[in-house]
């Protein structure tokens, strides 16, 4: 039983990091419907897995590879960042969704339909306890940074840019620079959570990177709230615990179709939650 709690706890923290990137930074600060931020998560997991499995990287070098992965995802995340300069609202969401599909197809082509498996963990992170400790440490560091960020004038710059790019530019705010930088930072953070996910699960299950999953996570980000530093943990908790409960419930009766049934049921729950949750009750 404690193993189950540990496993759920790791997932909550890893997805908490992901939601810090999606809900707090991209939705809350930049104001973009970055449905496809899951592509960065997937890239983080995929690139990390490529290191030991395709390039033969092992031992302490894996830490260097993790750093390379995060930098690589940060750079790749600048691509939707540049797209954001020309696209807003729904149009950006469509482009973002396309990014998820492109990455999913890429992962499937390279890693096969079941994704990579038996991805080695770096030395020192073999146990789940070590993974939860390092994940929690990273979560706290990032959460404190974002909390402090919200008290600087950078927060004002983002609020101004969210309201009107023209207004922001008229006050000398370099809109392009701050938006693209935000996409880079949020992408790097999503990539880091993807790396931790690959380390924890020792694989890159493509089901976790699907379009349906991206939409569910986006809806949860909105439901959890975009302004509080605790909201990502709430969203992550909702996601991990509900998924676990639904999969456990369906596993006996539907066997291999359990993940699909879970997704469908999860989608239904979200539709009802979004429909009956007033805007005011969504955590700020």
């Amino acid at each position, binding site marked *: 039983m404690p193993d189950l709690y540990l496993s759920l706890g790791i997932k909550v923290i890893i997805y908490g990091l992901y939601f810090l990137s999606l809900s707090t930074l991209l939705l809350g600060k930049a104001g973009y419907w970055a449905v496809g931020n899951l592509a960065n998560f997937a890239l983080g997991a995929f690139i990390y897995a490529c290191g030991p499995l395709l390039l033969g990287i092992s031992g302490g070098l894996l830490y260097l590879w993790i750093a390379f992965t995060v930098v690589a995802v940060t750079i790749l995340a600048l691509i939707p960042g540049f797209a954001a300069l020309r696209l807003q609202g729904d149009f950006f969401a469509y482009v973002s969704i396309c990014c998820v599909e492109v990455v999913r197809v890429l992962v499937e082509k390279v890693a096969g339909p079941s994704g990579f498996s038996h991805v080695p963990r770096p030395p020192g992170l073999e146990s789940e306890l070590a993974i939860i400790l390092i994940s929690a440490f990273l979560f706290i560091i990032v959460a404190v940074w974002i909390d402090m960020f919200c008290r600087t004038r950078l927060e004002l710059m983002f*609020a101004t840019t969210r*309201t*009107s790019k*023209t207004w922001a530019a008229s*006050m*000398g705010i370099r809109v392009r620079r701050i938006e693209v930088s935000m996409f880079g930072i949020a992408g790097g953070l999503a990539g880091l959570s993807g790396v931790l996910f690959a380390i924890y699960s020792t694989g890159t299950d493509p089901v976790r990177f699907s379009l349906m999953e991206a939409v569910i996570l986006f809806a949860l980000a909105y439901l959890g709230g975009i302004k509080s530093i605790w909201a990502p943990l709430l969203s992550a908790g909702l996601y991990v615990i509900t998924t676990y409960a639904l999969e456990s419930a369906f596993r006996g009766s539907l066997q291999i179709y359990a993940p699909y049934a879970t997704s469908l049921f999860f989608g239904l729950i979200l539709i009802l939650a979004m429909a009956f949750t007033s805007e005011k009750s969504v955590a700020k």
Partner: protein
Amino acid sequence: MAVHTNPPVNENQGPQIITLYPGLSFSFGKTPLFELPLSSEKIVIRGGDICAVFGPNGCGKTTLLNLLSGFLRPTTGQVCFGPSDDAHGIVIKSSAPRWLNPAAKIAQWDGGVRRTFQVPVISPDISITGHISVARRMKREETFTSWYIAPIRRLFQSKNQKYEIDDTSCEESEQLLKAFNLNKSISNPNTLSYGQKRLLNIAQAIFGGKRLLMLDEPFANLSTSAIAIVKQMFRDFVASKDRAVVLVEHRAKNLPDFTNGLITMRDGLLRFEALKGTKEEEERFISKLISSYFG
């Protein structure tokens, strides 16, 4: 009434702030909107000037302001910020690449050029003092490292210190809010009236603008007393003779007692009329101008 061509009017003329060169024109597609004919003199707005852009609806006043603030490029010709021999000046040319939007660069030019819009822009996520604070840019925020350093520095500052503006600026912003009768304790600026939102935008511009203010219909929806306050603010703003104000205004009665230059737009032509005389002389001149322009 003495009517002068450019250069204008002030006896103690300040430095050149904006120069519109003959040949400047702007078109939407193939439809020409306005031009400064090659045969006319260049229009120079100097420190100490309060210049109004005047013309009928749809003649391109806001478009001219958009062009001057870098949101649009001229179709032909050029606009220059600062003296033409100034290495720090900015030139907006028709040949500038389409992707190069110089609005932020102009806003930061020489300490600050600020712009207000026809419809007041207010963010519900920013407090009243935050609105004022964000208008004054700090160079250190432009560096990417500030993203990492600013939050760490914030860790060691008191929670009461808001948004890292120094005490002098804080006092200055509070005086501005007081002058405009804006209550800084209002948490949601969306609850302000339309006129108050406009005043907040003007206060923002004055706080952030170190060199030039460009205001689109600043007196719209304001009470007579508020208009008088705003006019006095503009006079104080240009008093040091190194700053200028360019504004779009429809109501001619608001112009005579404080503007000293008019950019008129009629039949797609830009003209500069300098105003120098008593209030009554200027009123007579403007009403004559209105009747000759608009019938």
